[in-house]
């Protein structure tokens, strides 16, 4: 393995550790506001992972949508339900040990599965600006889902309004 391979792996490991740490913080921090901030950190980590997978459009969309929009949504929700936030004695419910055990076993299973399957690798390097290709794909192959997205968004909006309205 050459120098850049080593550096790539180091960077990957760094990003992965930071992402997982932020993810763990999201799950474990008692204060929901802090957890939400840790979630933002996780989103950044995932964006970096996308970059390593040479999906730059997706990386920026990750920041734009997840950090810029969904995180804000969550923060607003935290603020709106803040009255209860500090009165909790524990942030973890009674079944956490069971859940942790089950998930642990699940993870081990997944991990072994990932290692055992002989994945078929056939990727070519991604060069140049792929956004026009993405637009083309959206307008041709994925036309119907593309239009359905707008309907989904409409439904979301109306549904959320009706649920949240005073």
């Amino acid at each position, binding site marked *: 393995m050459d120098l850049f391979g080593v550096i790539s792996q180091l960077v990957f490991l760094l990003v992965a550790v930071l992402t997982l740490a932020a993810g763990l913080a999201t799950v474990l921090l008692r204060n929901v506001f802090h957890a939400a901030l840790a979630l933002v950190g996780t989103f950044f980590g995932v964006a970096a992972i996308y970059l390593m997978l040479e999906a730059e459009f997706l990386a920026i969309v990750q920041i734009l949508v997840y950090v810029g929009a969904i995180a804000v949504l969550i923060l607003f929700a935290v603020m709106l339900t803040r009255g209860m936030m500090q009165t909790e004695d524990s942030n973890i*419910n009674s*079944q956490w040990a*069971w*859940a942790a055990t*089950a*998930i642990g*076993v*699940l993870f*081990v*299973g*997944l991990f*072994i*599965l990932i290692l*055992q399957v002989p994945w078929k690798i056939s990727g070519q390097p991604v060069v140049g600006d792929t956004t026009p290709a993405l637009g083309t794909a959206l307008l041709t192959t994925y036309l119907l889902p593309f239009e359905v997205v707008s309907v989904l968004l409409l439904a979301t909006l109306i549904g959320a309004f009706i649920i949240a309205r005073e």
Partner: protein
Amino acid sequence: MVQNFTLLIPLFPLLAFAIIALLTRSRNRLSAWIAILGVILALALSLGVFLEALAEGAELAVNPFYGAPIVWYPYGTATVNFGWLVDPMGSAMLFMVPTVCLMIFIYSVAYMRHSHTGKDGHTIHEDDPRYARFFALISLFTGSMLLLVISSNLLQFFIAWEIMGFCSYALIGFWSFRGLKEHHIDDAQVGRARAASIKAFLTTRVGDVLLMTGMILLFITVGTLDFTQMFSPDGLNNMLLGEPPIGALQWPTLIALLIFGGTVAKSAQFPLHIWLPDAMEGPTPVSALIHAATMVSAGIFLVIRMYPLFVFDSQTGGFSMQTVALIGGFTAIFAAVLGLAQNDIKRVLAFSTVSQLGYMLAALGIGAFVAGSFHLITHAFFKALLFLAAGAVIHAVGTNDMLKMGGLWRKMPITFLTFLIGALALMGIFPFAGFWSKDEILLEALRLGFFSESGAAPLVQFVFISLATAAFITALYTGRQLFLTFFGKPRDQHFYDHAHESPVTIWVPLAILALFTTVIGFWNTPFAPAFTGYVGEAGLVGLPVPFEHHAFDQLALISIFVSLGIAFGGLFVAYFIYGFRPVGAGQPDPLERLGIIYRALASKFWLDELYGYKINLDGTARAGLLVRFVGLLSRFSYWFDRTIVDGLVNLVGWFGRIMARLWGWFDKHVIDAIVNGSGSVTGEIAGWWRTMQTGNVQNYALIAVAGAMAFAILFLLRSFT
């Protein structure tokens, strides 16, 4: 290449339905025009297809217009497709259905406007409060009828069939509730409409279940529901592969009978005919459209569509066609007899419809395919005409009861004339449509029953005698209706004064239908059998054997005179009873002198009381004996449960008490302890188990994850061994 647009034909009325239902339902006139526009567009396209089909000629039968481009859903290696199939008979239906529908639509524009006398004595005209809904529903109906006609597979056919069933239900019960401002209906009518719609729906449901069962069995045995694939020789032979289901009954026979069950209910054949007379509670255009011209004939059309199956069955020794002929022949005479004693002008026509449908089925059952099909077409025209004319009378007079009419021809000459044409056609009098088609059926029955080369066939002979008698009775009751309604002196001056000639939008459709009634018969005269050549010359899809056709011979001439004689005989008897000495005001019907027979006829042989649902004039309804017997049975079961079973339990309890007294202390402390112990153990276990239902989503999710974990463990174990 109009044929490629066949699938669009039903779309226009359906679109009209959607537009009216969603957008314009508050605008009465606009809705009506949208509905009419939808039918006109469908008619134009249908005529295009029809003309193209005519140009193809008889060849169309073996190479029909067919396309199934819309993939609905795939199963296994095949798919169920939506498409169209137009063979000669289908094209004739495509001509008949939208034409009749258009006439009825135009007629309804004025018919659904009611007049009543206001507080100040003036006559007020106003639209029915559900005017737009009416047009929406009949548009939906028309669309589904057209969809049924062009269906390329049985499932599509069945869907359209069910939508029609719903429309029928909704339209029979159109007046089943009453707004504050509705003057044209009373509470009795509301009650009748409500009961009648439920009766119609439930009765036809019996047939639909049979049809669906047949369809499922067909799919299982043949593997497809597409007509063209189903009737290929392989497709039909597939049915013989499996083990026969019940004893000697073969698969084709069973399936054909089940499918015919759908027809029996939909086309109101004995014994499921009971719903049709009561269905007359709906508005008259509905009776004309659904219960005379189209929906009930859809049942016949089903037999026509599945005819290759019936033929195949009789070739392999089944008896489904004989059943069809038997039921058709019996219904023809049975319903005709019942029609004699009805006083409601529409009910007479309803029984007449049942009877005529019986004719068609009898013809199909004895193998006279072309004659039966032709009667289907002609009957639609003249029966729609009769209904509409009767509706015009009802609309003008304000009652359904013929005994309260009389002498109306002076007041409504145009209506009278058109009704007369329709009545003559129904009786089978030269040169109107019914004459040609009915004569054809009688001729075929005569020829096959008495002069067949393969020897006499008793069943066909029965059919002939039954149909000939029915023809006589048809002429009789039609004549009775004619004389009671239009001739003689007015029997109720109030209603007579109220009567007036119909507005132009009502009589123009009548006149057009009368014109059709006059000329349509010439499509298939014995001398120039164009329809026979078109429909019958090349057989059917999957049955490329020409139907037997005889040139005009002596027998045909005899048959013409016989049928004319029968018709005139019936008319003469009617004149003798009702025309010669008209029934006066307040006089009973001369037929009442028949006593018990008349009462049997008037109450429809008490079949409603036996197994149906008896709807009284005052809007109350009462279940039939059979139904009540089931009710009684359940009540008896309840009683049995309460008294015998509970009694036994009580007895055991009493016995136990005695025992307890006898054994005293021991009992109390041992037996009771065991009982209590088991109870509390059960309670404990239940109490423990029910905590599983914490109501906490996360618990449930955890259990799901535990399932995933179990799989993970399984996977790990497998991968390490």
